[in-house]
């Protein structure tokens, strides 16, 4: 794996389960020793300067790892103190973070009594406390409802430029919305790298035309299948995929079969298409 993440960039790592996203983060956070090679975090070698690396990073692990019987303020203060912040400053930071994350009203409740969304927000606050230059967010919105997820996206998006953020996620929409750059991983390797637009565009070697039509007879279906092998017909919807599709040619041909076209358009390529194209559609063992 060779990877460069620029300062202030929000970089997303995508990939199926077991592709090595979390392992990569663990190595960069000095929680796992690389079996081979090395990495530099803000110039510090993860193999030789782990303490220096840990001085500049903040981590929100995949699991909501918070001390359940402490309250949010106590959890935040603990991490700030472990990062070497003075007691007064740690309290000041903690109060600020609970406010930013909208947890003031629950700041004195034990964490085990908080909702999943609140715990996630607290977990991210713990990664951000004491102003680390680099933040690792391992699936930060996992299991959150759409409202909470959207709120967190907006907060994370607000950090762009201020901090370098490495994010892993299974939500394509999340990566699309937040990332400056995306790497798609599989089996411990970077399969593709670029902006969301780059990745989507690269998946355009085949395009899909979606046609909504009436009067699709059996004869018309046979004719369409004969002309376009990669076709899906579902009721009145026809989806044709091919590498050299010409919009006018396709619509004229469908029209020629006797079908009455109500609408037709090129399907916009999505990040998910790119992801599936790169990692494959099948489940790996």
């Amino acid at each position, binding site marked *: 794996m060779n990877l460069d993440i620029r300062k202030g960039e929000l970089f997303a790592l995508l990939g199926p389960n077991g592709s090595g996203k979390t392992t990569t983060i663990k190595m960069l956070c000095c929680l796992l*020793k690389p079996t081979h090679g090395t990495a530099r975090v803000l110039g510090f070698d993860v193999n030789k300067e782990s303490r220096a690396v*840990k001085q500049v990073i903040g981590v929100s692990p995949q699991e909501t*790892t918070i001390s359940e*019987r402490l309250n949010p303020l106590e959890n935040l203060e603990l991490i700030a103190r*472990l990062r070497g912040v003075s007691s007064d400053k740690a309290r000041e930071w903690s109060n600020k973070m609970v406010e930013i994350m909208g947890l003031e009203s629950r700041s004195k409740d034990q964490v085990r009594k908080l909702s999943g969304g609140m715990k996630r927000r607290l977990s991210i606050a713990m990664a951000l406390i004491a102003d680390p230059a680099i933040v690792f967010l391992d699936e930060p919105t996992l299991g959150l409802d759409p409202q909470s997820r959207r709120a967190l996206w907006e907060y994370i998006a607000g950090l762009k430029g201020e901090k370098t953020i490495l994010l892993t996620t299974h939500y394509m929409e999340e990566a699309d919305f937040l990332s400056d750059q995306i790497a798609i991983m599989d089996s411990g390797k970077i399969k593709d790298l670029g902006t969301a637009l780059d990745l989507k565009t690269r998946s355009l070697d085949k395009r899909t035309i979606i046609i909504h039509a009436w009067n699709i007879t059996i004869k018309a279906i046979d004719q369409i299948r004969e002309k376009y092998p990669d076709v899906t017909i579902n009721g009145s919807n026809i989806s044709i995929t091919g590498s050299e599709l010409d919009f006018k040619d396709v619509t004229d041909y469908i029209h020629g079969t006797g079908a009455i076209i109500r609408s037709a358009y090129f399907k916009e390529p999505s990040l998910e298409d790119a992801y599936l194209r790169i990692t494959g559609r099948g489940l790996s063992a």
Partner: protein
Amino acid sequence: MRFLSLAIRNAKETYRDPLALGFLIAFPLLFMLLFGAAIGGNSDFSFTIGVVDEDNTEISGQFINQALADIPVFKITVFESASQVTEGLKNGNVESALIVPAGFGEEIKKNWQNQDSDIVLELIYDESDLTFSSQLISTVNTAVKNFARVNIPITIHTSHINIGSKVSQIDFVAPGIIIFGLLIMIPTSARIMVSDKESGFMARLLATPTYPWEFLAGYSISMLIIATIQIIIFILLGIAFGMNIFGNIALAFLIFFLTAICSISIGMIIAALSRSSNQAEALCWLISMPLAILSGVWFSREVMPGYIQLLGDLFPYSHAVSAARIVIIRGAGFSAVSDSILILIAWALVAFTAGILLFRYKMRA
């Protein structure tokens, strides 16, 4: 002071968890209460011993009529033969029998003259009552050693042996229960650490610039606070049930405290080696329960075979139990238990260092 922040967090996690706290305090407390109720209260006791003098020398006479008779807890009846005393045992006229074999006087004399000697006594007792019998063995053993001036173990040799005092059952049992309570700190210490490891909280902590020793100190200090409270409660409860502390209470406390450090360090080692809380728990109980037996927590080690005693000697708890007992029961001073204290300190240092090294290794494994 990262380790203090960690210690405060760990202490809060424990005292805010009623189950964990209950396990730490209530479990040994229950034993203390049961034993206290069962054997506390009217605790004066005596041994009725039937003695047979097969040696019939001046020395054996002195041993029976002076050395043994001077021990207040012994009520001695002299029998003519071994068969008579066995009969007396069967009838319940005596609770135990001591046969002084022929040649006893010669062997004692040899020892007085600094020659090699082989002093043999036959003691018959009800072996079903382990606590009673172990007291008996211990008392007779001490009496013989004093009389024969044998090179007795340093723990007894260099101090005044208060065996003539009114020793109660609770005096004998309470130090063992306290050590048992401290043995339970092995699973408790491991549990806190493994649960942090399992939940991933440890990973979050490890991603901060904290040194391995700071982590272990953070976990240990919180456990030591709990151990200190535990020791105080148990000592007070023992006293409430009639336990007499003939020796220095601070010395007894030191022994308990060092034992707690050993338990916590062993717990940390197990935590570092375990991959899950189930694994850690099984390993802890697999280690702590046999250790409780090997160390003579419940009954005297003198009733155990030599090789078992030797096995027990390898671990700190047997030294802790015997040292605590001779301080509490016999009023022994520091010099009498200094060897045991050194062993406890050595164990604590080695185990804590091993914990740090293992933790450091596992931090990036």
